């Protein structure tokens, strides 16, 4: 029998651990990753000629980052590694890849999707202006390029990353002029029982807030973003927000990093015809999987933050678990004890993640309150008012129908940054629960391709 073909998409924490488990079983997996180097976004590597230490780059996670990079490097020669390659479609047990202008179609017996996450965004008036970045993007700037996104930076949104990136900026010598958190301290206290599932991570979080206060960075809780102010030519000049007690305040700045925790990249799971279900904790539609990562579609396995936001540590465990499930389904021997231990780890991380979603809730009501003139779709500059008008004129209250009429979600980011907020806005306008609005379908190509793409000459 020919060797089973296992394709791993993504080379972040889950993809690396999945590939490692497959290689350990004596198979040669194909590992396809969009980045130049493995590590994913969280353990993203700096270019070769940069010299900062692991401690400086990854802080408390330095040892994990190094272990992951070392593990991946040790796989050289044992895997078919394809960096800088996009998987842009999945159909009929094949993946379609693009590397520059070269395209290929690869069959698989098992497909392990480790697609990772992007920032979850809530639009705010003015967020289309130059100088507004996603929170994760602001971290990439620092980690992989040693730059700050501006001279005076505001961090706005919610979630653990808000504090992590703000403190990384402080450590690196950037000027952080404010941290504006939409969540309340009370929510954090209520979430404590779940957060205690991972005391060391919780402790790291507490240390970050201490560091910010020691550095004199103003941190405000329970704020409501009002507007990013500035000029359409020169960009951001400040942030307006409302305090918990209802006062209108403005902070001057030339850059804003915005993010509300993360959202999984599920387009490929969708194209692979995995079933999805609405998750009420996070207000996100998630591809369904069993405890080991098996999706509803045959031969498809889901791991890491691309399946559900459980964090990098969980991603390492779920990546390995998904690989063991795939190997077992292909009739290869696997260690049952190891599977049991990994399941226990993932369950613990899930409890912690539930705590995070309670401590830093998605501020759905902000979408409903967006003023008509606020742009909701950055790609094509479609305003909240345009979307509301489409709803009034066409009666569209289903996500894909509203997209077809309004173009919200049809632009080049394909709804990654507007889709969740647009669904909340539609739900509020129509007076229905957000799950009834549905979810934007994944469409191939999942990212734009060059027009000149073609099969590689043999």
């Amino acid at each position, binding site marked *: 029998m020919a060797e089973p073909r296992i394709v791993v998409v993504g080379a972040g924490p889950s993809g690396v651990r999945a590939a490692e488990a497959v290689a350990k079983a004596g198979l040669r997996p194909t590992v396809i990753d969009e980045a130049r180097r493995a590590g994913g976004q969280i353990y993203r590597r700096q270019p070769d000629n940069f010299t900062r230490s692991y401690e400086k780059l990854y802080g408390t996670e330095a040892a994990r980052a190094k272990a992951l990079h070392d593990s991946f490097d040790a796989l050289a020669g044992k895997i078919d590694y394809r960096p800088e390659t996009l998987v842009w479609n999945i159909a009929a047990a094949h993946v379609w890849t693009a590397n520059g202008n070269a395209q290929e179609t690869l069959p698989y017996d098992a497909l392990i999707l480790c697609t990772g996450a992007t920032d979850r965004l809530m639009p705010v008036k003015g967020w289309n202006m130059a100088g507004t970045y996603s929170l994760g993007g602001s971290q990439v700037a620092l980690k992989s390029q040693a730059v700050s996104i501006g001279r005076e930076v505001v961090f706005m949104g919610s979630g653990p990353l808000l504090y992590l990136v703000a403190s990384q900026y402080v450590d690196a010598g950037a000027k952080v002029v404010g941290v504006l958190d939409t969540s309340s301290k009370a929510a954090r206290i209520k979430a404590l029982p779940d957060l205690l599932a991972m005391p060391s991570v919780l402790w790291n979080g507490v240390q970050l807030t201490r560091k910010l206060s020691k550095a004199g960075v103003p941190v405000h809780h329970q704020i409501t973003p009002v507007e990013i102010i500035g000029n359409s030519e020169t960009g951001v000049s400040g942030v307006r927000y409302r305090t918990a007690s209802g006062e209108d305040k403005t902070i001057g700045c030339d850059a804003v990093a915005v993010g509300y925790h993360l959202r999984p990249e599920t387009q490929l799971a969708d194209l692979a015809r995995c079933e999805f279900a609405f998750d009420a904790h996070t207000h996100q539609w998630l591809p369904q999987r069993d405890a080991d990562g098996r999706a509803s579609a045959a031969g498809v396995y889901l791991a890491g933050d691309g399946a559900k936001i459980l964090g990098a540590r969980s991603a390492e465990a779920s990546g390995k678990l998904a690989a063991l499930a795939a190997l077992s389904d292909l009739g290869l021997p696997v260690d049952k004890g190891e599977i049991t231990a990994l399941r226990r780890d993932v369950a613990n991380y899930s409890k912690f993640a539930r705590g995070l979603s309670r401590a830093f809730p998605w501020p759905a009501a902000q979408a409903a309150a967006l003023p008509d003139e606020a742009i909701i779709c950055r790609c094509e*500059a479609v305003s909240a008012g345009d979307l509301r008008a489409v709803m009034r004129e066409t009666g569209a209250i289903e996500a894909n129908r509203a997209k077809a009429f309004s173009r919200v979600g049809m632009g080049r980011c394909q709804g990654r940054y507007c889709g969740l907020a647009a669904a909340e806005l539609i739900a509020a306008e129509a007076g229905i629960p957000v799950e009834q609005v549905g979810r934007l379908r994944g469409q191939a190509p999942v990212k734009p391709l060059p027009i000149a793409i073609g099969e590689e000459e043999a």
Partner: protein
Amino acid sequence: MNGRFVRLGETDRPHVALHVDGQAVTALEGDTLMVALLSSGGTLRESEFGDGRRAGFCLMGACQDCWVWTENGDRLRACSTLAASGQRILTSQPEATWPNLG
């Protein structure tokens, strides 16, 4: 204005010389095009939909808001393309017009 991005370290790298809209720009080896352009300027591109200048957004290849062009018309994602000596970059698409909102 000066550059939008501020370098916080790793400045001891060889220089690379490129052209952006015909102007000479100096960057450092290992810079992405985005960092090269935003270390010397305030924005990357014009929104095709009439709402002003843009300077990228996600830095991880997901938002597509950092597209720039070569003089040959090839489209590059500035956040994930390395700057290299001799590049001739345009911040608007050659020979293209787009419908604006206005």
